[in-house]
């Protein structure tokens, strides 16, 4: 009996080991989050398309909102041509706010983004606010009358969506804007439906169920155009506020690899982004098309960081 149970323990411990593979994707978070999703889907499609030499191994390296993975890539794997790392708006937001222990965006090479989760502003079903301008007018009249709930901490991407929107609408006293950061979009929804917060910002994919069930009412989607499946939700642009906030899903690679290797990753990502499989994954998961590759993406990241830094300074998060 004893040997038998010990064998069972041994079996469990050995089954954790995963066979080695050439390409590796680092998800800088625990299984289940957006980065893990990016790694697993891109990895799977790369294997199916034959872009990768075999199975793409996914390594979860959580910590400091991606900072642990970032510093490991910069310091220890700077010339590894076989590794790519999942990234999103959260990565660049934290880089801009110097939250990765002094690391900067130019210490890696940005490959591209192949999809985006459109930002959305919702209110409770019985809210008095009908449109985005309604909400903004109310804030302009009395900033303390509206509290936003979001799934990220203060200074995180959900908070920035609110601030950028108000900034574009000409409201400059953004330190007065009330925002509470809770654990994830669904939690923020419960606070809004419960009436503790008056509006909620998040990613569209997190809250589609609540929109369809009628618990909340979206008043603006922060994308270039209306999103497929949510054609009746107007964009902020249509309502006169020129703001696009997409939580993009993309990857970066180490700085020290050769230009050919970098180009290889750009081409591979492009193939994934243009594949039918990825289109299917996007519709199933509430993502909208949003693709930028190569040098263009490097510029996009730099602009993005500059903009985040400006707002972070305005709210006193950055000196």
């Amino acid at each position: 009996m004893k040997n038998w149970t010990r064998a069972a323990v041994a079996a469990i411990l050995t089954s954790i080991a995963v066979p080695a593979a050439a390409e590796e994707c680092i998800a800088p978070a625990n299984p289940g989050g957006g980065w893990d999703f990016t790694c697993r889907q891109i990895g799977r499609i790369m294997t199916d398309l034959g872009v990768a030499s075999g199975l793409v191994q996914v390594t979860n390296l959580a910590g400091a909102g991606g900072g642990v993975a970032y510093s490991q890539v910069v310091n220890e794997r700077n010339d590894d041509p076989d590794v790519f790392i999942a990234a999103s708006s959260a990565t660049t937001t934290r880089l801009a706010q110097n939250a990765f222990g002094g690391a900067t965006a130019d210490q890696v090479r940005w490959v591209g983004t192949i999809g985006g989760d459109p930002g959305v502003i919702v209110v409770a079903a019985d809210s008095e606010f009908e449109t985005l301008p309604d909400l903004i007018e109310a804030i302009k009249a009395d900033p303390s009358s509206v509290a936003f709930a979001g799934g990220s901490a203060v200074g995180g991407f959900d908070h920035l969506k609110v601030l950028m929107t108000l900034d574009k609408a000409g409201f400059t006293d953004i330190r007065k804007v009330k925002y509470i950061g809770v654990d994830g979009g669904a939690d923020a929804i419960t606070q809004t439906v419960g009436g503790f917060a008056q509006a909620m910002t998040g990613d569209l994919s997190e809250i589609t169920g609540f929109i369809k069930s009628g618990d909340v009412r979206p008043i603006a989607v922060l994308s270039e155009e209306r999103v497929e499946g949510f054609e009746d939700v107007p964009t902020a642009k249509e309502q006169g506020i020129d703001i696009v906030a997409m939580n993009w899903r993309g990857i970066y690679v180490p700085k020290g690899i050769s230009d050919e290797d970098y180009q290889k990753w750009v081409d591979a990502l492009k193939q994934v982004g243009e594949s039918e499989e990825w289109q299917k994954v996007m519709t199933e998961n509430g993502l909208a098309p949003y693709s930028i590759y190569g040098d263009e993406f490097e510029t996009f990241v730099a602009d993005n960081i500059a903009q985040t830094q400006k707002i972070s300074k305005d709210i006193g998060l950055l000196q």
Partner: protein
Amino acid sequence: MEILSNLAMGFSIAATPYTLLLAVIGCFVGTIIGALPGLGPANGVALLIPISFSMGLDAIPALVLLTSVYYGAMYGGRISSILLNIPGDEPAMMTTLDGYPMAKQGKAGEALVVSGVASFVGAFIATIGLMVFAPYLARVAFKFGPAEYFALYLLAFCTLGGIGSNNQAKAAMAAAIGLGIAMIGLDKTTGMPRFTFGELHLQDGVDFLVAIVGLFAVAEVFFFIETHGKNSAIGVKLGKILVPWRMLKQTTGAMLRGTGIGFVAGVLPGAGASLGSFLAYTAEKSAARDKSQFGKGDPRGVAAPEAGNNAAAGGALVPMLTLGVPGSGTTAVLLALLLTLNITPGPLLFTERPEVVWSLIAALLIANIVLLLMNVPMVKVFVHILSVPAWVLLPGVTMVAFVGIYSLTGSSFDMLMMVGFGVLGYIMRKLEIPTVPVILGILLGNAMEDNLRRAMVLSDGDWTFLFSSPIATGLWIAAVLGFVAPVFLRRFLKKPPMPETEPKVGD
């Protein structure tokens, strides 16, 4: 009657020979994972997700396997709590308080059976509660805002005196240490890091699993080395296991009360299983007429928290399925699993994918019965894993502790921190300071602070906001009563004075 026909549908999908086999495997693996210190339900489920994918399982078999592991780990956590004085996972922490003293008195078998049955009662009733009330209970979460959550956590801290049975001041100090540790990390309300000294690994704060494994398992190893195993927890002998019917009858009330409290704590997304088992224990202690045996091996002190934490595990599925809000680390991992299977939990899940929901519920009921059979008549199998000679077990515990912690984040930093907690735990044990309040401080302190700060943001710093709803006020009254009542009751009842050398927790 709609429930019954839905349930029949669930069973028809979930109860095939193949899925039943998966349920048995899941329960067995889960119990082992739960029993091993450092590997909790969250790690267990996270580790098995890739395996279930590589086995090519469909949505329903995968769910059956992983929920069996989840429930199995909740059952298994108590085994090492009772036999080794090391909680297998964080909700099993409260079970050490009375379970281990029982084992010391040669009643390990009774403790295991009582706790096993309590686990079953808690989990089974909670699953039925999930089945019947889930759509209504989802609405409860909407009633809890920052002020209500703050009052709830305050209630937990006010009843903290219930655990440090010998010296209230030492328990309070331990809780303060825990609260201090909880300050480390990114402050959600300002986005600023606190006490991280520029160290990236500290930005997410101190993981309470690191603290638990350090304070309990590693400290136990140090203690064992010092005493050459004489006074250590490791190596408790287990006699023949009989079903102690009288003891079960005596603890029925404790189990049912624990179930009720645990389920409610589980349903609230911000609370979770640890709070459930904690409140179940302190409530049971304050409700008991004769408290003198609590902390020294009272079977009610085993039954209540075990029923509580298993009921909370079932309750935590309510907000996860109906709102997509995970109430605990494990439900967060299960949520991730559902999303990868293209099942989006949320208000529409019960109407859009009834086959998933009902087969999940059927799977939970099956898992529970399998687990009752495994954990009562067959508990010796698991005990054998833990009752190997000390020279095998001790390196084993150490190894599992390190592997478990490494698997959390994949960084050696956490392992060093765990050793640091081990040293702290050893010192505290020498000074006879209980370690459980440290963990509660870490676990609840963060959430309590976040909610207080959110409440202050919402109300522009107006303190009266904290009492602004009937729920919040009710919780405040309960908290004040919980804090003050023992002081007065003690005088009224003329309780005999505390003996000078009362055995400390874990002795």
